[in-house]
């Protein structure tokens, strides 16, 4: 019996550490191998050079797609917030028939496999003449990120103490003043948290972007994807590192502004 206990403890301990290492390792490996002097991907890297970063910076396809991804993520985030926050408010604060159904509908994009959605969306956008446009991509990414906004803002709004609204009104605040001076400042962490989810989801998305952006508009992950399919060299490592850096930068920036405690 004692042997089995010890074995179990050891086994679960090993598994746990393997998992932590396994999750942390890949990004580190990508970053490390981007500095390798070799022309093929090796790990551990041999030598040290920044040449691949130069190559990436000078590569028009990669830089253009980086710009596109960033712009797309920002626009989609802003729109998703503008559309999703009132919807979340409606669900949380008001009672109306069909509330549960609406809630399910707003969270539906998370449930539908993106591959499935992508094709249908492609067809619809083609009908609308938006198939290869920035607007089409934006629409797709708004649909993609809307559930995150709704879920995060709904959680924030549920925690909001409504007696603060009443106190503000009893102190002569008009509804617009209540929103501006009480509601928004207190909801700010939630808004920032939702923004992070949206940005990161949009920036990193491949599936939707791959289906919708053949031809002119290629986002960074899709660019990496197509490049890898044909050949791979450390330029990809450098570009992937860029993705990691941008993602982490956004998260850290928001954490500095809002406090990680309030987001997790």
């Amino acid at each position, binding site marked *: 019996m004692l042997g089995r206990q010890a074995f179990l403890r050891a086994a679960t301990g090993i598994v746990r550490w393997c998992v932590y290492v396994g999750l942390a390792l890949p990004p580190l490996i990508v970053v490390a191998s981007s500095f390798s002097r070799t022309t093929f991907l090796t790990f551990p890297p041999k030598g040290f050079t920044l040449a691949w970063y130069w190559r990436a910076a000078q590569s028009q396809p990669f830089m253009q797609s980086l710009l596109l991804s960033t712009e797309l993520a920002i626009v989609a985030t802003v729109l998703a917030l503008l559309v999703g926050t009132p919807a979340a408010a409606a669900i949380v604060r008001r009672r109306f028939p069909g509330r549960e159904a609406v809630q399910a509908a707003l969270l539906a994009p998370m449930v539908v496999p993106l591959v499935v959605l992508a094709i249908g969306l492609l067809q619809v956008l083609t009908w609308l003449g938006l198939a290869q446009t920035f607007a089409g991509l934006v629409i797709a990414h708004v649909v993609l990120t809307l559930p995150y906004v709704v879920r995060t803002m709904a959680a924030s709004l549920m925690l909001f103490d409504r007696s603060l609204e009443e106190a503000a009104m009893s102190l*002569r605040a008009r509804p617009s003043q209540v929103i501006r001076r009480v509601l928004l400042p207190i909801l700010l962490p939630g808004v920032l948290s939702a923004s992070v989810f949206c940005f990161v989801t949009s920036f990193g998305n491949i599936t939707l972007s791959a289906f919708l952006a053949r031809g002119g508009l290629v986002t960074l992950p899709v660019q990496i994807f197509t490049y890898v399919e044909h050949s791979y060299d450390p330029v990809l490592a450098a570009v992937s590192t860029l993705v990691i850096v941008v993602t982490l930068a956004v998260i850290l920036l928001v954490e500095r502004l809002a406090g990680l405690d309030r987001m997790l």
Partner: protein
Amino acid sequence: MTGIPRSVLSLRGLAKSYGATVAVESLSLEVARGELVCLLGPSGCGKTTTLRMVAGFVSPTAGEIWIEGKPVAREPPHQRDVGMVFQHYALFPHLSVADNVAFGLVNIGMPRAERQARVSEMLAMVELADLAHRMPRELSGGQQQRVALARALALRPAVLLLDEPLSNLDSRLRIRMREEIHSLIRRLEMTTVFVTHDQEEAMALADRIVVMHRGRVEQVGSPDQIYEAPTSRFVAEFIGLCSLLEATVTDVRADTLVVQTSGGVTLVLRRPAVRVTQGESVVAVIRPEHVTPASGGLANQLTGRVLSSTYLGSLSRHRLLVSGEELLMECHAGTLSGVRPGADIKIAIDPARPCVLVTDPRR
């Protein structure tokens, strides 16, 4: 009553129903300038709904609300001249103490210099001047409440509304805050309505108490009126302790009544203001202090058996069995020392103080 009321706050026929449920049933009340009125009652009696109707957070189903001669029942809360202190204070967590107090002043567009002066004045009044730049989460419960008060009073409202102001504080703090609030309101001659379920708080603070039960007003009166002359069983039982004895009137005299209880005891009691006839059913409201150990020529002398005794420091309270009915007695400590449960003692009931209620078949 019609026409523009002269009282600061006037409620006429105020009512609220949610579908078939009646929360408040036609309440009318006039509150004079500087008066402290308490809405008192158990959970669900409608007192908070009434307060929130005055504040504007609940729209009345019927009735009028007048504040300083203006009808406000249809007006949104931010246009009413009331200040409200919420049960959990509702201090804005993202603003400092000073900014909290200034909040309403900013909304009405008061210029900065004047605003700062008013904020300093209010903070000095509640003795929190040196905490002006702290955040609400750094303050104790008592301090938070004082900020909430200062914030509401900064606008110099016509009426101050308090929602269970002391229920979040522990008992010692509660008593101290009670006195502070009382003296502050008195000093400002602030017309105040507050809501509570704590009858001691009501008795200590209010000029007049409105006792409510299930949406209806049971009785309105000063604390001593409510205590000494309750007009219904509910009020009698809700305020203070009492023993209720059902009895029948056997004789009506000039100043007194003779009644016989269902247990066969005959009592002589003060005649109530309402008309009573022989043979009518009544209820005698006997407070524990109306019952004393018998001596000499006291009226209403009875024999009872002690069921239990509780020592409360300055008082002792005893449960007695008198002719099959339970009676509560309260005496100063030491009066009945040595009396054991099971012992028989002689007691007397003061004829002048118990109140006699004419029982309404509806109740």
